[in-house]
């Protein structure tokens, strides 16, 4: 079985040219074994 997640995550605006840049970062690699409760990715509010 397989689970697919599709989600919106925070986007920060670059202070230099006001262009959108992604603030969300995955902290996984392809082929990694992951468990329930472990972080897939993180973001910053700043």
């Amino acid at each position, binding site marked *: 079985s397989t689970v697919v997640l599709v989600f*919106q995550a925070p986007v920060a605006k670059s202070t230099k040219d006001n262009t959108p840049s992604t603030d969300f970062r995955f902290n996984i690699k392809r082929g990694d074994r992951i468990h329930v409760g472990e972080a897939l990715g993180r973001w910053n509010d700043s």
Partner: protein
Amino acid sequence: NPFFLNQLRTFSSSAKAALNDGHNSNSSSSNGNTYLLPGATVATILMLGALHARRLYDDKKVEEAKEKGFEPGFQPDAKASFLGLLPLCTISRMWGSLMSVELPVKMRPYVYRAWARAFHSNLEEVALPLEEYPSMRDFFARRLREGCRPIDSDSQCLISPVDGIVVRFGELKEPGAMIEQVKGFSYSVSALLGLNSFLPMVSGKDVVEKSSEVENVHRDQTKKSWWRVSFSSPKFQEPVPASPIKGLFYCVLYLSPGDYHRIHSPVDWNVLVRRHFSGRLYPVNERATRTIRNLYVENERIVLEGQWQQGYLALAAIGATNIGSIELYTEPELRTNRPRKKILQSEPPEERVYEREGVGCMVKKGEEVAAFNMG
């Protein structure tokens, strides 16, 4: 392989001898049958063993190639086409019924330990003593001991909803929002989640309207004469694929047979819609992803859609031949992998909007939302 052929020859010659003996006398007839049946059984077991060994060898080759940096591409084959002809949903239900048979208490630990050894399950995490799982199906959908899966407490993180292997992840940027199944083949996110999904996309129509607005403004500014407009060739606008709004991500996780098969909420989440797609039940292992087109879009699945702190979130739980049914805690009466009267495979999904007081169904980060079951 030579060993297998020798074995087959031995068994066929012994079977022939047994048959000849059977013609000679009545008393030896029973002996002939006695030899024939075990011979055929052993030959079948050997054949299945040889096929399994070959498959393991092929998989090992793929793993080695991956380690060298070569990514296997999409290669549809005859076996995949043959799978399409099989009644996989019926096979899955039969498998489920077989696995629901209650096992004798004394046998249970041996059977479950054998399963755990074959599929690398950690029996130390199991919530109950092995004797308390009446059937393989119950053991498969087991809960874990309290504290085995600590939930990351960081409020700015999204957690994994399942135990599994990360197959693919990334950001959806291109118009049409496609997820790569394997190198050389992608499937549409809209097809996976449903065409009436709330997927935050800038629609192709909006893009066309915006561009025509810009064109009109430009036309007014340049003050083109009427005939230039009249004789200009008509423009047939092809449908423009929608583009995802910035910051739309995806992650594909594969659960192998030995894994914990319950699904948890990745964040605090307000589930607004449930969609059930009753499709096929192809296997979803790595080999299947390389050989079966639109695997995830074809298979039976449940999609939960809703809103979280940062916007849109959808979770698609996709079944497979051995794990065909999905149990939903927000809707315990829902049954999947049911026999269908309709012949057509491509039925529209069955949808339910959760409108409990107009706020949907709230689930907390780490809370159980669904479970995969055998068959």
